[in-house]
């Protein structure tokens, strides 16, 4: 934690503004690659959703909508606390920044906790694709495709959440060491961009996996 309070201008740049804009641009480019990464999975989902509409809706009806909706609410709240964190960083409120980063981390952890509870319930229900897969419908292999895509896509999302938690943790450490100020807080802004992106992906996942079979749900 040897970084001083003032901003560090790395040698390849000639002005702080240039450094900040470059870093932000880099993050946006990274997010566009992430969109393409998830995009491939959304494409595969759409194709099989089109091939096997009945099985996919049945699979969706089998989801635990209460846990899914709670998780969506948790993540949206975490985006809110993250936005407040970025705002605190901009005005130089170090204590507030600490608070909001910690809150965001906690909400992220709650999300992951609920997500893995859900996975465990799927496991108990024999919904994990593979030899032990069971599904009470006419065509289990097609429902298996639904669950396979569900596990891959939400699993990749959960992986991104873990990375996000790590980033937030490092932000807290750097903030405690006094690395950020109203003049220099680019890493917090970038962490915020990443966090919001991961949230938005979840909103789409929630829509395609949970909402679709809502009308068939046994309450």
């Amino acid at each position, binding site marked *: 934690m040897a970084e001083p309070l003032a901003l560090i201008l*790395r*040698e*390849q*740049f*000639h002005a702080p503004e*240039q450094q900040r*804009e*470059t870093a932000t*641009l*880099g993050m946006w*480019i*990274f997010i*566009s*690659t*992430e969109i*393409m*990464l*998830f*995009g*491939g*999975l959304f*494409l*595969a989902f759409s*194709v*099989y959703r089109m*091939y*096997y509409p009945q099985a996919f809706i049945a699979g969706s009806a089998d989801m635990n909508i209460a846990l899914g909706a709670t998780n969506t609410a948790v993540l949206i709240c975490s985006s809110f606390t993250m936005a407040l964190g970025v705002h605190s960083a901009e005005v130089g409120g170090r204590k507030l920044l600490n608070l909001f980063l910690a809150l965001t981390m906690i909400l992220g952890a709650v999300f992951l906790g609920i997500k893995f509870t859900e996975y465990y319930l799927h496991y108990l229900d024999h919904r994990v*694709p*593979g*030899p032990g897969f069971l599904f009470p419908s006419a065509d289990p*292999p*097609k429902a*298996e*495709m639904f669950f*396979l*895509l569900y596990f*891959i896509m939400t699993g990749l999302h959960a992986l991104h959440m873990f990375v996000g938690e790590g980033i937030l943790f490092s932000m807290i450490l750097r903030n405690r060491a006094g690395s950020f100020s109203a003049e220099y807080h680019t890493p917090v802004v970038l962490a915020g961009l990443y966090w919001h992106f991961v949230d938005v992906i979840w909103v789409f996942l929630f829509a395609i996996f949970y909402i679709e079979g809502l009308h068939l749900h046994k309450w």
Partner: protein
Amino acid sequence: MTPVAEAVTVERNYLNQGEGILSWLFTLDHKRIAILYLVSVTMFFFLGGLFALLMRLELLTPRAWLFNPGDYNKMFSMHGIIMVWFFLIPSIPTTLGNFFIPMMIGAKDLAFPKLNLLSWYIFMFGGAVTVFALVRGGVDTGWTFYTPLSTTYLNTYVTATATGVFIAGFSSILTGLNFIATIHRMRAPGMTWFRLPMFIWTHYATSLVLVLATPVLAVTLLMMGVERIFHVGIFDPALGGDPVLFQHMFWFYSHPAVYIMVLPGMAVISEIIPTFSRKPLFGYDFVAYASMAIAVIGFLVWGHHMFVAGLSIYSAMAFSFLSYLVAVPSAIKVFNWSATLYKGSISWDTPMLYAIGFLGLFTIGGMTGLFLAALGIDVHVTDTYFVIAHFHYIMVGGTVMAFLGGIHYFWPKITGRLYPEGLARLSALIVFVGFNLTFFPQFVLGYLGMPRRYAAYPTEFQMLNVLSTAGASILGVGYIFPLCYLLWSWKYGKKAGPNPWRGTGLEWTTASPPPRDNFEVSPIVEGPPYDFGRMREELHLG
């Protein structure tokens, strides 16, 4: 000139600033990272070339005499995988691009030097995993990893190889990200978009494709790996999957990847031709827009790899039309390079020989691409040597020629030394002759119906195959020559001075080899690129 040149020799440059292997392994200097990449991709090139040589030896006789058919499958698979992902994709961007993008725009370094070094480590890690898979027994899917062959039926190191490719993909993404951010934000004062050398424009287009296409390959390989490891169905029709979806996703990356490979070649050619014709690049704006058009339209043509895979006739027609369309910007470039030559004061130095070779060979490769875009002809020549010849005219006749041309053109700047010109011209000639003798007969073979990926073939094809193998051995010699004399010249070559070719770019205004920060004084740009007229005046005035 002389006092400057003498002062330069005693000054510290990027090569002597920092000693020992660690100063290289932990360097953040884009020039040194470019050298790390150059060494790596050269090794992969010769490794991939070794497989090619073994294949050509096998094909000397109609009967399989050297390998059993299974081993032959491994030969062409490993040749393709190494050449595509560990040579062609990184070749020009990570070496010449890495070295010269900051220099040409007047920057001290790339925007993210640490990411740049990280990308090299990721690349080497991916390469190590792939070589590990190769040493353990290799892979025989072909470089395309088509499912369900790759996921269900083969017992070779598919997962390990795909993991290597998957990892290397992230190094591509980081390189592309770095270039885009650098070109947007790191330009010197006065370096407006339309004053950028064409090298920059073309690398910008390449980087867009790198960051947008590579993640799709990553996720495709991920799904393939899941299917193979867990024995669940995504692409396997027996388990409800759709193998054609794999092909769509694979080619959504791999066709744009062709432009990742050839656009940087065009970047190099756009620098060499003006310099050795002493004329500005003809139709600068059009060439710039053509690069962007190739990047955009290149995303919309992947279906032409799948004309026989069961596409509907309507989507096949759409892909056919778009494939014709993507040829237009490439043709614009060829015409503009040719127009640049017109009434130029041309000198036939080695880089120019490679550039002219590129012009001819790329044109043949491009024109035969139009044959393949035509639905009827494509059905006849699909999976034949015609396709092989076509893409080797683009990849080897285009990209490798441009790579060698670029290495020769920039060698004096990179090392501060000149290579032996006579020997270099001779090997450029050997490469050209060897290349055509290798691949032209393959057009004929393919048109006559010889399928690709077989170790044996009917006896009437032997003559043309022997010609091709003879050409390959000449080509091999042509590649080993530059390796030897370039390494020799690094130590014993004549001192080059800052601007041996009288080029106009910012990279020629600084010392050779350049100092750590590239420029003694941060440059300010006051005019268009390729301003040979102004340079002539300045020389004339003294």
